[in-house]
């Protein structure tokens, strides 16, 4: 193996890293193989940091799609504030700069005893360690009438892509004065503030283009994340436009009728011009099939190594896990992925493991120039990830502070997507 001098490494930034990381192939020594399933935020980060951690590890990333569209910032796209293309990220840099083998297939099955993954094209991959980061799936029959056909009429837009474009088209072609109904899911779900950020940014779009339109949020919960910050902003920016109905008031959403674009609660039927139905969630399908999820529908893991509590040798990160106090966010997925990559690399290279640092940081838009932020640190305590320190923006902050946060959010998007996709 090539040994590096400090000076050589000092020059290894950007494109130089590309050649450098591809060069040092271990000769006469088998590399440890890590397969990562899912090239979303968690999976791409694990792959990238593992590949950079140790040249003695060969990393294969399995992801069916040619490019990934971020859910974060997709609410800005829905409000007409960002082109869809700006949300899209390819896998070329991961392959070229980091030497990751990217396989554009779907993983069909995992065989932990044989340590193989079966791909949908019939081929097989062997691994020494497996990382599974499949994101979320929607719970079957959570809402009567909400099947695949209904999703094409009342989109969820909770995985970014065609669904997000569909919802944007519907919002654009909606007449002024129309009713936009947003069905918010029960806990736990992907990105706790995101349904309410979506309502806020759609309201900003309506205010500009369809000032007589109304927004109705039918919630499966009786309270929600950062509620005081949202409700304060709704009163300031969009008075009278957004109505939020908690479950205790409606009895909860029980069904939808796609034919009439209606949302049905225990006591009433709401006919929408545009309906965004975000159903109850669970870990991605593959995790369910592979026996990685428990009865909660989510995957229990060791909070230090992110190894499955149910299948040794298989690690999980991101929305699919039961993260203790860690919310299901891209930032958490990225933070868990680094800890997981360092733990796997330490194991495979026989080196010491350092204490992990786990965080969530989130910027949330209330209006195009009004964003708030929060930050939480986490530590493993008694087998669970516990929040240690937490700060969130305050209702009485100045508009200048909020404007700065909205600008910082754009910088975060740029840096974060570089960190994940290279």
């Amino acid at each position, binding site marked *: *193996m090539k*040994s*590096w*001098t*400090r*000076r050589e*490494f*000092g*020059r*290894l*930034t*950007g494109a130089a*890293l590309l050649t*450098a*990381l591809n060069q*040092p192939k271990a000769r006469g020594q088998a590399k440890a193989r890590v397969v990562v399933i899912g090239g979303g935020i968690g999976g791409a980060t694990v792959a990238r*940091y593992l590949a*950079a*951690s*140790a*040249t*003695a590890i060969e990393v294969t990333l399995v992801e069916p799609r040619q490019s990934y569209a971020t859910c974060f910032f997709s609410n800005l796209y829905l409000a007409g504030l960002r082109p869809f293309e700006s949300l899209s990220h390819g896998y070329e840099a991961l392959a070229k700069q980091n030497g990751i083998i990217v396989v554009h297939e779907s993983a069909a099955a995992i065989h932990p005893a044989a340590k193989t993954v079966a791909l949908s094209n019939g081929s097989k991959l062997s691994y020494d360690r497996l990382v599974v980061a499949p994101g979320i799936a929607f719970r079957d029959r959570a809402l009567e009438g909400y099947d695949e056909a209904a999703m094409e009429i009342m989109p969820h837009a909770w995985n970014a892509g065609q669904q997000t474009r569909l919802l944007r088209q519907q919002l654009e072609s909606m007449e002024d004065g129309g009713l936009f109904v947003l069905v918010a899911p029960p806990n736990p779900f992907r990105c706790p503030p995101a349904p309410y950020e979506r309502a806020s940014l759609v309201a900003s779009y309506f205010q500009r283009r369809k000032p007589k339109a109304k927004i109705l949020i039918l919630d499966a919960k009786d309270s929600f994340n950062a509620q005081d910050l949202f409700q304060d902003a709704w009163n300031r920016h969009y008075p009278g436009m957004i109505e939020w109905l908690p479950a205790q008031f409606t009895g909860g959403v029980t069904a939808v009728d796609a034919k009439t674009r209606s949302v049905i609660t225990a006591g009433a039927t709401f006919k929408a011009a545009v309906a965004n139905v975000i159903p109850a969630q669970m870990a991605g399908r593959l995790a369910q099939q592979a026996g990685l999820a428990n009865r909660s529908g989510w995957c229990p893991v060791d909070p230090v190594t992110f190894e499955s509590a149910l299948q040794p040798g298989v690690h999980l990160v991101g929305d699919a896990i039961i993260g203790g106090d860690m919310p299901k966010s891209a*930032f958490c997925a*990225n*933070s868990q992925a*680094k800890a997981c990559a*360092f733990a796997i*690399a*330490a194991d495979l*290279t*026989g*080196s*010491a*493991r*350092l204490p992990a*640092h786990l*965080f969530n*940081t989130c910027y949330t838009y209330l209006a195009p120039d009004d964003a708030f*932020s*929060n*930050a*939480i*640190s986490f530590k493993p305590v008694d087998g669970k990830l516990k929040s*240690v*320190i*937490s*700060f*969130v*923006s305050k209702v009485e902050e100045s508009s200048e502070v909020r404007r700065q946060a909205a*600008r*910082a*959010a*754009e*910088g*975060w998007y*740029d*840096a*974060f997507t*570089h*960190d994940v996709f290279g």
Partner: protein
Amino acid sequence: MRPVARSAIATGLVLLFSQSGAAAGPDQGAQLAATCASCHRLDGGGTGIPSIIGLGEERLTNALLAYRASESPNHIMHVIALSLSDEEIASVARYVAKQGSNPR
């Protein structure tokens, strides 16, 4: 800082683990800097979030100590800095100070 980490830094700025046989060990500064990279581009690019490249070890250390001491002016950096020990602050500052410049 522990000798393991020092020898790792001496052999590599990019790999997060040293590859040099007996001295193999994780690079504490690099692993901590992975946290920075979630918001700050380590190639010095980007806008909206202040760059941490080209500041020098002492300024980085002092900034982290100040963030640790107070919630103002930035609660995000306060939470990050509160999670770091003195030793960790020293090692991440040393690592980040070497990024994007021409280290000797």
